């Protein structure tokens, strides 16, 4: 380090001075109460459930992450550990060095918990995806493998999002030890960790693979019949399709046996059926997967079309033109040096036309989301930004595909009103536009597309911090599907109805 660096570091260590005299407490309390009021109405039931779970689980998470945790007062005997229903990184346990290796003593039970991929900095929770209670034989083998791990000072990093796995051992006295297993490291405490060895990785994968696939979708309806009926196609987090009848709640799975790995994104084709994205190379890692388009119908017949996009430019969003003749996709610049992010418009199967591409400058964005066709079938609206694992946001941008040389333009009105716009979509042929704004509380707002004037009051959404909402309007714009926070909701006249959980995307089916 140079002398100048030493001086700079010394300067950085100095206080910025005394803050202006202010009492933040009244504003903090007022703001916190306002936040709570907004959420209470929508989450009252969920809150009650979570509080019960919190009472059962938080002591383990907060106190048990890695050290041999004493049983709670009054507890006696072994209780098999269970998985918390969700996990958030900033509640990582405060760990103390155990100094006894990765599995101190003799555990009597263990549970392996896998949580959804998430950015470590993101505030939203990561839901539990899989849970495996180990058999005695599996427990013995796991302990043997872990005993071979050697603590190290080496470090490793992984690209976000990271799938988190936690392995919690239970002891006869009720204590627990939790290991955090990342993509490259195993942590038993802040100071006792090891690089994730191949035998352990393979063993953990085998344990998780022993769990049967989750059911494709809820078989019964959890919502009241919706006036006007209609059908919706849901894509659940196991990548299965299910058609849901809004009038009766009846569900019907759509088998797509030929699509390797299942579809990833879906868009309604106004001409019939849907266009989906999928990964042709089924066995690739999530961040090394190529992507391709396919047309799908309700009978499960599918046909791929268009080029296979390599893992350095995966498809992030798609939209079919109002007349069904073209599909627009956005390609992400997956890493520095990869081809720049771009929008590609190509004909759908059975139609002819040019394939056009609009690259985005490297220094302006590496990801595009929320592609949506305007009713005129010429303009495309989207949101662009740099993906760092925490989602992207910004005012909608419009590209006129009928004028190839014309630069895209930002909306002349301020859609965000000072908030982050996470998602946006044209509302069919209505001339209205919907945006999801991540303000102090997230909300869905309908606006006039030409003036930006709000159309009705905002619809409050629960669960701040969710990434990448998907909005799908009906053809006439009277109904909107909102896929967000692993669930899908239907919005009609400002009223939001939850259609189901564990859904990553949805589209109109009729």
């Amino acid at each position, binding site marked *: 380090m140079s002398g*100048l*660096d030493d001086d*700079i*570091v010394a*300067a*950085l*260590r*100095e*206080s910025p001075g005394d*803050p202006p005299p*202010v009492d*933040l*407490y009244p504003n*903090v*309390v007022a*703001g916190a*109460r306002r*936040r*709570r009021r907004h*959420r209470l109405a929508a989450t009252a039931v*969920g*809150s*009650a459930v*979570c*509080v019960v779970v*919190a009472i059962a*689980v*938080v002591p383990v*998470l*907060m106190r048990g992450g890695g050290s041999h945790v004493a049983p709670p007062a009054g507890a006696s005997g072994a209780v098999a550990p269970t998985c*918390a229903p*969700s*996990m*958030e990184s*900033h*509640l990582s346990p*405060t760990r103390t060095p155990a100094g006894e290796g990765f599995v101190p003593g003799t555990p009597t039970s263990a549970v392996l918990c896998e949580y959804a991929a998430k950015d*470590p*900095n993101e*505030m*939203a929770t990561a839901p539990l995806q899989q849970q495996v209670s180990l058999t005695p034989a599996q427990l013995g083998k796991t302990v043997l493998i872990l005993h071979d791990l050697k603590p190290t000072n080496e*470090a490793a*990093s992984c690209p*976000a999002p990271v799938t988190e796995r936690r392995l919690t051992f239970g002891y006869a006295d009720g204590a627990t030890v939790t290991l955090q297993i990342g993509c490259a490291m195993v942590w038993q405490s*802040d*100071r006792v960790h090891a690089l994730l060895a191949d035998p352990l990785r393979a063993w953990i994968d085998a344990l998780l693979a022993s769990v049967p696939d989750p059911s494709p979708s809820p078989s019964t309806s959890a919502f009241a019949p919706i006036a006007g009926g209609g059908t919706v196609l849901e894509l659940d987090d196991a990548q299965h399709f299910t058609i849901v009848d809004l009038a009766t709640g009846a569900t019907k799975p759509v088998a797509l046996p030929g699509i390797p790995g299942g579809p990833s994104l879906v868009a309604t084709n106004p001409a019939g059926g849907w266009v989906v994205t999928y990964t042709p190379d089924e066995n690739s890692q999530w961040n090394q997967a190529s992507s391709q388009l396919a047309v799908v119908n309700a009978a499960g017949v599918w046909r791929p079309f268009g080029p296979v996009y390599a893992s350095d430019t995966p498809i992030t969003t798609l939209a079919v033109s109002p007349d069904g003749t073209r599909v627009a996709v956005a390609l992400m610049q997956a890493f520095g040096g990869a081809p720049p992010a771009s929008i590609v418009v190509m004909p759908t199967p059975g139609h002819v036309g040019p394939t056009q591409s609009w690259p985005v*400058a490297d220094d*302006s*964005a590496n990801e595009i989301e929320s592609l949506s066709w305007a009713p005129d079938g010429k303009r495309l609206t989207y949101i*662009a*930004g*740099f993906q*760092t694992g*925490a989602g992207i946001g*910004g005012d909608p941008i419009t590209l006129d595909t009928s004028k190839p040389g014309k630069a*895209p333009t930002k909306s002349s009105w301020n859609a965000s009103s000072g908030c*982050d716009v996470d998602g946006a979509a044209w509302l069919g042929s209505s001339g209205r536009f919907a945006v999801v704004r*991540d303000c102090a509380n997230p909300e869905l707002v309908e606006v006039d597309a030409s003036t930006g004037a709000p159309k009705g009051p905002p619809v409050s959404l629960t669960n*701040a*911090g969710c990434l990448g909402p998907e909005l799908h309007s009906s053809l006439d714009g009277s109904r909107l599907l909102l896929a967000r926070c692993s669930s899908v909701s239907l919005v009609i006249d400002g009223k939001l109805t939850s259609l189901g959980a564990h859904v990553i995307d949805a589209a109109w089916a009729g």
Partner: protein
Amino acid sequence: MHGLGRVEVVADEPEGFHAYVVARQGDLLRLARMLTADWASAQDLVQASLERVWPRWNHVVRGGDPDAYVRRVLINLHLKGGRRRWHGELPFAQIPEAISDEGNPFEAADLRQTVHGLLPSLPPRQRAVVVLRFYADLTEAATADLLGCSVGTVKSQTAKALRTLRDECGRRAVHP
């Protein structure tokens, strides 16, 4: 389990929270000031962080280290805000010149003022790294844990930040 969207049923006035805010708001404001461009932004950041801590204060206290928890929330909000503001300008905005409420840092004779004035021009993550490492005096491992990255990333981000600060200081010839 404790996402921002979840509501905990807690007492309206969490026990000890007021005392904590009174005792710690000065230090939190100074930390936030190092991460932001001015005291007003620092107040916003600290207030937003404490608002998020308020409903789960009892859990935070039981965790045993409320400072660490609040700091993590504050850093997360800072990084999210930085990213979002940055992206909100895209793709047509120009990156603005650094703004400081302490006068033009490049004309300041004092290296501390200059360096502090240059901090807002660093990318949010680099700024967070040097503030946590040097101002908050955290170890590389603790900084990595707080930022959710590897120690190697902390080292490389620190080096990049120092290089930027060094180049700017040298270019402006403010170093004695």
